[in-house]
């Protein structure tokens, strides 16, 4: 047992973990995630895929909202752009899926410059509402340019086969999504530990002070916008592939709110929080139906007519309760329980 944390170099300071135990557990978790898709039944496999896809999006939004402190309601706009970029590239232009995925990142990134530059002057709520406006305008543009996007009819998307490996099966596709989620997680963690990441957090904590210390607000805010929308675009493309059909209706505005809720429930401003929040929010409806079935047949039947509404009510109530009683989110709970585990019976 160690008696304290002693860090003597910068390298140790920014090291993700210095504990061998944590490394072993991480390796086991990775192994479990690789093996699991081969044994899960289709329902749980689709849940796992959705978690991986949503986690990519949440990690992307975390760069913008969690670290840079720019509240964005335009999440779904970037997702839909990514999905359409991929769908048009692969289904209509018949390009390679790898190029499609690249475009799915680059197109939202380019769009984010268009949104980002005007947003540099705006703060807080005005920014949130500008990004909301962006999400609506993107939807409109997609429906308007129906020569390219096929308008309201949508585009059929096939499961890709990348570099000769086919991802047609559910298991293979789940593994692809998990792999991309893992890459995104490592990438964002590395970003956070770099000079750029520190600059972004400095902007969030106090933009004027950051500017005085030599952080170029324009460059770094745009950087956050571009990186985050690149990642969100990829998650949108994966979601489109998962649905196997890309339409504007497939990406309701609720996804933007869900993404913010994930960050809050997980614990805002941490990559781990984005992942935990995703797992929680995606599984919440399943918990809810499990809970309803516990109540017995009579109530279950009485509630079954309004089951969908009850689930989304629960979703709202969970957001409110978390904000009210656990502002640090699931990450906060995790830290508290770790501290309790180490220090018990002492409080600190």
């Amino acid at each position, binding site marked *: 047992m160690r008696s304290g944390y002693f860090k003597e170099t910068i390298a140790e300071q920014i090291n993700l973990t210095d504990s061998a135990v944590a490394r072993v557990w991480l390796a086991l978790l990775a192994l479990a995630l690789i093996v699991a898709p081969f044994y899960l039944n289709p329902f749980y496999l689709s849940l796992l895929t959705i978690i991986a896809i949503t986690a990519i999006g949440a990690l992307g939004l975390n760069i913008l909202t969690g670290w840079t402190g720019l509240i964005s309601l335009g999440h779904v706009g970037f997702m839909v752009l990514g999905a359409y970029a991929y769908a048009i590239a692969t289904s209509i232009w018949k390009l390679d899926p790898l190029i499609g995925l690249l475009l799915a990142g680059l197109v939202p990134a380019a769009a984010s410059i268009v949104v980002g530059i*005007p947003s540099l002057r*705006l703060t807080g709520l005005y920014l949130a509402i500008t990004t909301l406006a962006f999400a609506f305008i993107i939807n409109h543009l997609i429906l308007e340019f129906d020569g390219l996007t096929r308008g309201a009819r949508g585009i059929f998307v096939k499961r890709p086969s990348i570099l000769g490996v086919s991802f047609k099966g559910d298991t293979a596709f789940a593994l692809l999504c998990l792999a991309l989620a893992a890459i995104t997680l490592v990438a964002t963690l590395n970003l956070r530990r770099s000079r750029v990441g520190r600059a972004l957090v400095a902007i969030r904590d106090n933009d004027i002070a950051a500017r005085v210390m030599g952080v170029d607000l324009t460059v770094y805010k745009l950087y956050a916008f571009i990186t985050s929308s690149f990642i969100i675009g990829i998650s949108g493309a994966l979601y489109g592939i998962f649905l196997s059909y890309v339409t504007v209706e497939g990406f309701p505005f609720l996804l933007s709110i869900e993404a913010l809720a994930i960050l809050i429930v997980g614990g805002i401003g941490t990559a781990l929080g984005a992942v935990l929040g995703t797992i929680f929010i995606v599984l919440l409806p399943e918990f809810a139906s499990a809970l309803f079935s516990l109540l017995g047949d009579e109530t279950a039947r009485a509630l079954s007519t309004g089951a969908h509404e009850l689930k989304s009510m629960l979703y709202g109530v969970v957001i409110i309760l978390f904000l009210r009683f656990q502002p640090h989110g699931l990450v906060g709970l995790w830290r508290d329980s770790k501290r309790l585990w180490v220090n018990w019976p002492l409080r600190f």
Partner: protein
Amino acid sequence: MTYLIELLISGLSIGAIYGLIAMGFAVIYKSTGLVNFAQGEIAMIVAYVAWTIASHVSGNVFIVAGGAIVFACLFGLAIERVVIRPMIGEPVFSTIMVTIGIAVVLRSSIIFLWDAVPHSLDVGIGREVLVLGEARVRSGQLGVIALLLIAIAGFYAFFRWSRFGVAMRAVASDDRTAMLMGVSAARVQAVAWAASCVIAGIAGVMFAIIHELSPTMFVLGLKAFPATILGGLDSVLGSALGGFIIGAVENLAGGYVSAGMKEVSGFIVIIVILMVRPFGLFGERRIERV
């Protein structure tokens, strides 16, 4: 020409509804620094309550209006007391997310408590077609424009002369000093929520009378955002004016360009306006001191 006038009048009438909801946004923002994302849902739920009252006591406008206003008032007070007041001292972002949570809960509880099919709210008046020159308008459309004008005058007088209005402005400009001067910030916040729910509720009921009542009415809240941003989040009267502008622009774009443009023209307008004036047309520029 007649087409233009008809478009303008129906644009101004829908704009008046946006304006009322936008005033609700601004009242809450001005006294608490929050944006209430549940405003459209509150308008919707008040309209549903009004419909329930109207289907039990038929034909009496005053009972329906009175019942709706009382309900909106109590509802606003309840939300403020149960959900918003415990959040005092938390970051603004969290509190705004709480209002989004309220929005989600209300939206699904409407379908749960009532149903998902559209209804028409018939209180006996507001649906007659009047002929003005060559243009044909519904009396309800003129009524809602008049209501917004009355609300503007009322709020102007309230903020300018009433003791409580002055207290609200004091809290808005500096809550700590206001509290030191003996103003109860909590009470100001409660009244702001009640007032904002009442005007949002009036907007919802008017919309239901002129058009119809359906669980997608909460979109009104999203459409009112451009109005309040255009006018400036902290300017109550500016928001009302912003509603007129957005409503007219939207309807003209819908009439002359395309139906899709109608949906997004409001959003395009605010992006352009925010480029020029990042705090809206009538909003106060915030000066940051270090």
